[in-house]
Each structure stands twice: as structure tokens, then as C-alpha cells.
């Protein structure tokens, strides 16, 4: 009885050691399953060769976590915010556990868990190390997890898929394709437990649609609040190798990011074809 318990204890310690605890961190942020989901999300959208070169010889990978506060929080807003810093990837993540009431919509916004709301590649850590709780995760185990799960589909469930098809029809109505007599072909991206974003590749118009927002693209009232969720990127026009090329214009994405959208949608996602009769045009 003792040996398995000892094994579990040692395993837990080695896989997530706390190096510093400047203040209480929400235990949900320290949950190993959650952290592995975050790392997988980061792998899908941000990591590249540099991370693996940097960590190739390391036994452990650091994750820095600290709670953060917003400016002048609204009355009654119970949302929680946190910042993660992944030194090996020079990546800062902002996470939010949304929990607030919208009186006009008579709707509570409550995310099922912390979700990544923004990310930034930085040359230096956003704060001194002692301001964070530093977790150590085994590098080899992370690499194995990422490799094994790299092509594991996480497709939307049937109900969400139906809502997305309805949402896509609305987008088509608002921005009609050049030839509406043709079937419209979409590819729906993988979903992630740590992101509210859903990407859809609209093949006919060579554009990418992002359904995002804290109301949750995965919630039953997606259609009702569609204008709050939808962004469209014209992949012909709005993609550059570097945003430096865009010269201050604010609607562009990089080829790297566009490539990840294409991979998430075309390779890992699901194909959906909507015949002209179902477009509602």
C-alpha cells in the first residue's frame, strides 16, 4: 500500500514542483491537466523550432504564473485573471476566468475554465521571477505529450457543429460569395478547452472566419449574439510575412498565423459543405 502511495507522491513532486509562491494562486491554474492543455494550445498556435532547440537539453521546463488585476473592475464582476510566462518560448499568456452578468442581455457570462485571451512574444520576462509562482514540468514528458497529441482531432460536438453551420449561413448572407449558386465549402478548426476561439476556413472566398468572444461560440445562443463573435480575414489580402510590412495597418495577420489556421482547419478540422438551397440567400 505504501509503495504505490510513495510512487504517486514522488511522481507528483517531480512533475510539478513549486519553486516560489508569492501569493495564493488559484489551484485551477496549477492543475497539471490544465497546464498540459495550455501547452498543447500554445504548441498549436505559437511554438516553433526555437522552443525545442531551447529545451532540448533541459530536464524541466519552467512555467511562471501570477494573478493579475484589471483596471477599474466593474461592479459585480467576479472574473479572475492570470498571467503565464513560458521562458523557453519567450511567450506571455493572459488568461481569464470570466464570471460576470450582462443586465441588457439578462445573461451571465461564465467560462468553464481559464481561457487564453491574449499572447505575446517578448524579448524579456514581463516581471521579475520572484513575483511569480514557478512550476517545473518534465521537459521530456511534455515533448512526448505534444508529439503524441499533435494530430489528435478535437472536433466540435454535433450540436456545436450545427450551430456553426447556422452561423456560417449568417456570415454568408452578410458577405455574399462571388458565386452563390455554388455549394459553399468550409473547414471547421479543432476546438480547445483553454480557448474561446473557433476558426473556420471558407474555401470559396479564401477567407478565415473567427468566432470568438466570452459569451462562448460553443454556447447555445451563438446565433443571437453573432455580431459580437465574428471576425473575417481575407487570406488573399490580409496576410503578410511580417506585420512590419503592414506599416501600421491594423487588419493583417502573418503567414505563420495563417498557416496555423489552415493546418487547424484543413488538416485537423472537419469539412462542411452547405448547398446553395441551404444558404438562405
Amino acid at each position, binding site marked *: 500500500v505504501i509503495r504505490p502511495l510513495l510512487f504517486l507522491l514522488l511522481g507528483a513532486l517531480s512533475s510539478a514542483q513549486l519553486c516560489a509562491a508569492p501569493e495564493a494562486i488559484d489551484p485551477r491554474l496549477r492543475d497539471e491537466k490544465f497546464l498540459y492543455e495550455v501547452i498543447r494550445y500554445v504548441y498549436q498556435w*505559437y511554438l516553433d523550432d526555437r522552443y525545442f532547440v531551447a529545451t532540448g537539453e533541459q530536464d524541466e521546463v519552467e512555467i511562471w504564473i501570477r494573478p493579475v488585476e*484589471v*483596471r*477599474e*473592475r*466593474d461592479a459585480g*464582476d467576479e472574473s479572475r485573471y492570470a498571467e503565464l510566462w513560458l521562458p523557453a518560448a519567450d*511567450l*506571455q499568456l*493572459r488568461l481569464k476566468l470570466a464570471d*460576470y452578468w*450582462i*443586465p*441588457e*442581455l*439578462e*445573461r451571465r*457570462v461564465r467560462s468553464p475554465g481559464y481561457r487564453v*485571451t*491574449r*499572447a*505575446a*512574444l*517578448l*524579448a*524579456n520576462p*514581463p516581471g521579475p521571477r520572484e513575483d511569480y509562482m514557478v512550476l517545473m514540468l518534465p521537459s521530456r514528458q511534455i515533448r512526448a505529450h505534444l508529439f503524441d497529441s499533435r494530430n489528435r482531432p478535437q472536433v466540435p460536438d454535433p450540436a456545436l457543429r450545427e450551430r456553426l453551420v447556422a452561423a456560417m449561413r449568417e456570415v454568408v448572407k*452578410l*458577405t455574399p460569395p462571388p458565386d452563390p449558386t455554388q455549394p459553399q465549402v468550409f473547414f471547421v478548426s479543432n476546438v480547445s478547452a483553454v480557448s*474561446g*476561439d473557433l476558426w473556420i476556413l471558407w474555401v470559396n472566398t479564401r477567407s478565415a472566419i473567427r468566432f*470568438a*468572444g*466570452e*459569451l462562448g461560440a460553443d454556447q447555445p445562443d451563438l446565433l443571437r*449574439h453573432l*455580431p*459580437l*463573435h*465574428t*471576425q*473575417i480575414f*481575407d487570406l488573399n*489580402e*490580409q496576410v503578410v510575412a*511580417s*506585420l*512590419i510590412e503592414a*506599416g*501600421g*495597418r*491594423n*487588419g*493583417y*495577420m*502573418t503567414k*505563420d*498565423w495563417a498557416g496555423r489556421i489552415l493546418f487547424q482547419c484543413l488538416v485537423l478540422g472537419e469539412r462542411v459543405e452547405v448547398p446553395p438551397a441551404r444558404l438562405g440567400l
Partner: protein
Amino acid sequence: MEVRRFRAFRSGLFRLGAIVAALAAAPAFSVELDPPGTVPGYLAMLLINEAPFPGERGWESEADSRAAMRQILFVLDGRLNQIPSGYTQLEIAMVTSDDLIDIITAGGVHGQVEGFYRDERGRPVTVARVRGRLDYLVQVAGTGKPGAFARLLAYAQQASRDYVGQRWGAVDLFLPLEAIGPQRVTGRAYSWMTDLGQFHPGGRYVRIPDRNDGSLGGNRFFTLKRLGP
């Protein structure tokens, strides 16, 4: 088609503005958006479009969204009136002009401000998505007791009227910036982008970090490298 939609949208806005005003039971609130064909109306539409409302990606608080609107207005003002030494307006704004609408619409539909452009007759218009979202926001703002939606719409409109009427007295958060890390900068922000982490530092634009409030309303703001002594 675009023109017809624009007209329909404009008349719809008049109606919706009146509805919002009527439904705003509290006397302190009466949201009426100026027609988008006017400078204050078009500017307000831009501020509303670029700042998150409750439930949207990037939403944090009313104060945060108001600050985002303010700083976006300061970016436009910078491109219009505050060209730093060593730069030309053409380099920063893609246009040489003293007209605010030219600054907003420079570069066309995917230009300086995504989705805001001049149509073939030179009138300032937006893509359908912008109008659809605005219609939705106005509708929500008029539902029940006035709340954050109505207040943010009213804030954008009032800021726009004040700016155009040269009565705007807001404080630019980024004006005092002199250096970011080892890089000397011009102060003020000259660009903003959706905060998505694809921007590698480089070129003339310098990312304003969180410690300087560089992320507001889901947008990241950028200042410029200081040129010369």
C-alpha cells in the same frame, strides 16, 4: 449595392438612435448616434468598432474599453497633427492630409483601419460586418435599463463630437513615453492592432508593454522609435 445599404443603414441608425433615447429611462442617458456620413458619426462608429463590449473577446471593464477608445482617438490625432521629428505624415498615415476622414480611410478597405474606406464616390463607408455589429449594439443598448452598452455608445459619440468640436480634454496615456527598454521612443501611440502576439519587435514601431498600459480593449498599441538626437 454598397450605397443602398449605407443609406438604409443611416436611416436605420436615426431610428435606432431615437429608440435608444426613448428607452433610456434614466434621464442621465440619451444615446443618439450622429449619422455616419458626418465626421463625428463616422469617428464614433470607428471607436465603437475597435473597442470591446461586454461578452466580446478582449472585454475587461468599461474603464478599459473607454481607455481603448480614447487612445485610438489619440492615434488618429497623432497621425493627423503630431508627426514626430524625422518622420513624414505619409510614412505614418499612408496619406498626406489635414482631413480626419482621409486619415481613417487611408489605404482602402484593408488600409489603416480595417473595414473603413471611401466608396467609389468618395464617401466614407464601412464593410457590412461593422454595420451589423453596430446595429446589434444599438439594439442591445436599448434593451431594459441603460447599462454598459448604452454608456459606451454614448461615450464614443461624445468623445467624437468633442474632438471634432475641438473641446476634447482627455489625457494621452502614451504622450510621456520616452523609452521602452533601451529603445528611445517618440511618445504617443501611432498604431494599434488586435492583441494576438504575432508581432515580433522590429521596424519603426515599438510595442508598448503592459506596464505602460499598452494593451487596452483587446488592442495592442505601438509607438515609434525616436529618430535623430
